[in-house]
């Protein structure tokens, strides 16, 4: 059952040192900035963070990396024009990187949530990122065996939550939130607003409440708040 808490700090309670934490967002769209700031305040160290990127500028994940809380980043695109905190730790050898093609990242997260033991994909075949991985030819095409990616916690940013924990998202801020919610033992969502049960049309629920453990309302959307300092890195 979903718990509604009143502060981001309460929302991230109990995340221990060494936890694997998925963090939603593609760049800043969908990045749960309030939860990340709370995690920074909270103090957990030695984290393994799963995110598409490795932080940018002086916000959210970048600050967590800057504060040496992150032991390892699992992501598809760490290098951005403003990813200086990650760049510095990476070059200094104080942060690990597991680089995963973005589609494999998404599919591995989905597989964890869906109870798939492993899957074969053509993505990455014959490349450095498949080095040492099991391969198989299926219907004349080469595939690589990929495994699910799970987490202890998922921190995501959604738009609306209803009292049953059902979530909607805004535009491309949807990105990794729905799949990360399925792949973590405990999913924590920051949202713009909480509405009564029935306040979201059942046809339009994107993340059913079964996947959501804690919800905290934080206004306004962090994306909107940070619009002014929104850079345009050459990044995917």
């Amino acid at each position, binding site marked *: 059952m979903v718990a509604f808490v009143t502060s981001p700090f309460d929302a991230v309670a109990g995340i221990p040192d060494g936890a694997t934490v998925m963090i939603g967002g593609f*760049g800043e769209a969908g990045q749960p900035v309030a939860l990340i700031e709370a995690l920074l305040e909270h103090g957990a160290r030695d984290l393994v963070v799963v995110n598409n990127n490795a932080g940018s500028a002086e916000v959210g994940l970048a600050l967590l990396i800057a504060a040496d809380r992150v032991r390892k980043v699992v992501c598809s695109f760490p290098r951005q024009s403003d990813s200086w905190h990650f760049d510095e730790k990476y070059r200094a050898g104080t942060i690990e990187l597991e680089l995963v093609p973005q589609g494999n990242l998404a599919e591995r997260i989905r597989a964890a949530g869906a109870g798939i033991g492993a899957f074969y994909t053509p993505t990455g075949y*014959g490349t450095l990122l498949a080095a040492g991985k099991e391969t198989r030819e299926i219907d004349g095409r080469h595939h690589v065996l990929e495994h699910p990616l799970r987490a202890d916690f998922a921190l995501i940013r959604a738009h609306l939550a209803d009292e049953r924990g059902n979530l909607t998202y805004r535009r*491309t801020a*949807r990105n990794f939130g729905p*799949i990360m919610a399925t792949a973590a033992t405990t999913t924590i969502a920051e949202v713009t607003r909480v509405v009564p049960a029935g306040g979201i049309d059942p046809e339009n629920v994107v993340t059913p409440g079964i996947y959501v453990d804690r919800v905290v309302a934080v206004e306004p959307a962090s994306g909107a708040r940070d619009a002014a300092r929104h850079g345009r890195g050459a990044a995917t």
Partner: protein
Amino acid sequence: MSEAGSTTSRRGLDRAGIARAVARDIPRGSYVNLGIGLPTTVSAYLRPQDEVTLHTENGMLGMGPEATGDDVDPDLINAGKVPVTELPGASYFHHADSFAMMRGGHLDVCVLGAYQVSVAGDLANWHTGRAQDIPAVGGAMDLAIGAKQTFVMMTLLDRQGHAKLVQACTYPLTGVGCVRRVYTDLAVFVLAGDAQAPTVTVTAAFDATVEELRELTGLSLLDGTGS
């Protein structure tokens, strides 16, 4: 080509010219993903009557032009993290659904930049391989193998004057045997055959002869220019 030789020091197409050449070859009604960087510029040359629908792998079909002014919404960005707009009939979906769309072979055309392309269609565009460079792959490996056709846009020569269309890639690969067409400033190349017997046909040349292109690349090019 009006864009050819538009500056005295350049020969062949400029960036806009390459983008226009790609746009002309995208069939009407296609679903297309334009990679970050140079390929993004192709969108400027797609006309409404072409009815091309743009996919952005961060979760949208029906992407419109770059957003400006009050239209900027930090929750609506493209794969390059640039604020964009939404066209009527757009749709949003999460990352697994977005990459399923790409990896499942539903996109008609994907346009990517490249460090190198081999005659067999191998693509290298994600990593220089240099130790000091931080590797970043994004969706490149999924895009390379997922679309029905993968087009590459690049200059034919690198800054040192070496051809980027090569017998075999020396940069780390993004995908094996995945590129169908290569659009460059000096020519358009169509890759065919299979890994054992690949063929490269020049279908258009800009301020260059096929013989010159053979010299520049050191490759056995078929002449399909009809000249």
